């Protein structure tokens, strides 16, 4: 059994004013909801907003998606994907 490759769409929203990070994330998750559920895409949000490391995963999980937060050099990467 093989799995199809998952395209990752990256959104660099570092340095933006609060709450644009969460607003943009919600918009893009909604926009790609169908593809996320099918496992065709994953969304990667790059942010310097500390609060969004909580709010984006929480919102994504409430919508039935999986979210993983990874600290990078000076910012955070939040990966949202279909249930894994």
């Amino acid at each position, binding site marked *: 059994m093989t799995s199809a490759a998952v395209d990752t769409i990256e959104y660099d929203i*570092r340095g*933006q*004013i609060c*709450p*644009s990070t969460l607003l943009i994330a919600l918009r893009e998750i909604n926009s790609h909801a169908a593809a996320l559920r099918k496992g065709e895409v994953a969304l990667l949000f790059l942010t310097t907003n500390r*609060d969004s*490391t*909580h709010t984006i995963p*929480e919102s994504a999980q409430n919508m039935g998606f999986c979210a993983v937060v990874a600290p990078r050099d000076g910012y955070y990467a939040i990966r949202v994907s279909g249930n894994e």
Partner: protein
Amino acid sequence: MFVSPTVIVTAIGLMLGLIAGFVMHRADFCIAGMFRDLFLFRSTARLRALVLYLAVAMVLFEGARLLGLLPLYPFPLLGPASLAGTLGGVLFGIGMVLAGGCVVGTLYRLGAGNRPSLVAFIGLIIGSALYAEFHPFWKSLLTATTLFSGSITIPQYFSLSPTPLIAVAVAILGGLVTFWCRHGQLSRRLYAKGALQLWQAALVLAGVSLASYLLIGMPLGITNAYAKIGAMGEQLVFPDHVADLGFFASQPLSCRNPLTGMMLTGGPGPALDGIALIQFPLIAGIILGSTVSALSLGEFTLGHPAPWRQYLSAAVGGILMGLASRMAPACNVWHFLGGLPILAFSSIFFLAGILPGAWLGACILTRWVVR
């Protein structure tokens, strides 16, 4: 070894600011977000921390008063409520949402290297200085719309001891906090490095506020300093104009520092006075505290530009907050962290204004700023 009162007061302000800035950064303690999220995301999660703060601060302030530790009660510079002040609250609510943070949120984000917050900071200074142009008109409006016979607090108006009313308020707020705690709604899952829970930050800030009241003579407040910085800058270019403005000539502060006995006097004008002595170190401390926090986490950065609409929003928001903090006539920090815990009418009316303001700000933000 003799340490001058000036050094002592400066050191206290700086230390309190450092603690506040550090903690606010670690928790992302965003007071603007507490009200904005009610309308933007229909969330009360952040606001719970403010409720906890209020409950604890009420107990601390009233306990200190009963022990005879508070130098002046109500504290200096706290004025009566007025309907015009509520309009200031509305404008402040709009401004803080557009700026991406309130007067201290701007500072701790600035300290962490956030570019739009620098723009908002400059806007705050400009707005605070602009207020001087129509101060006579606004002052007369505040006076004309003063409520409750000029009483500052609810207990004062009813000629009652504050204790019973504070006890009732604490019981109500404490009940809410207890409910949230039992249902696991005070804590959040944290992913950011070195993060503090909002409730932890609320407890620390309550302690900082009390310390400020005990050691400085009043709770935390910073926006008179913004006006002062604006006046200093304007004086370099238009010295005669600054000299002619009544707002900059006013000297509303006149109290004795409880720790050193030094008389503190001052106002929003360009002189280095009691206001500068109290608030400049506090502002510097908040920025530095946040910078220390960000640097220690490897999160300090100036390298991430934001969309131009967000810079414009931050500028407009900063100017509105600066204006509103004089019209209200104080900022959210003064009102929520200081005035509400002692049931000040002006702070209650500020709260009544900031709610619709936050709603309007959220509407503007989603329609024109974040696209």
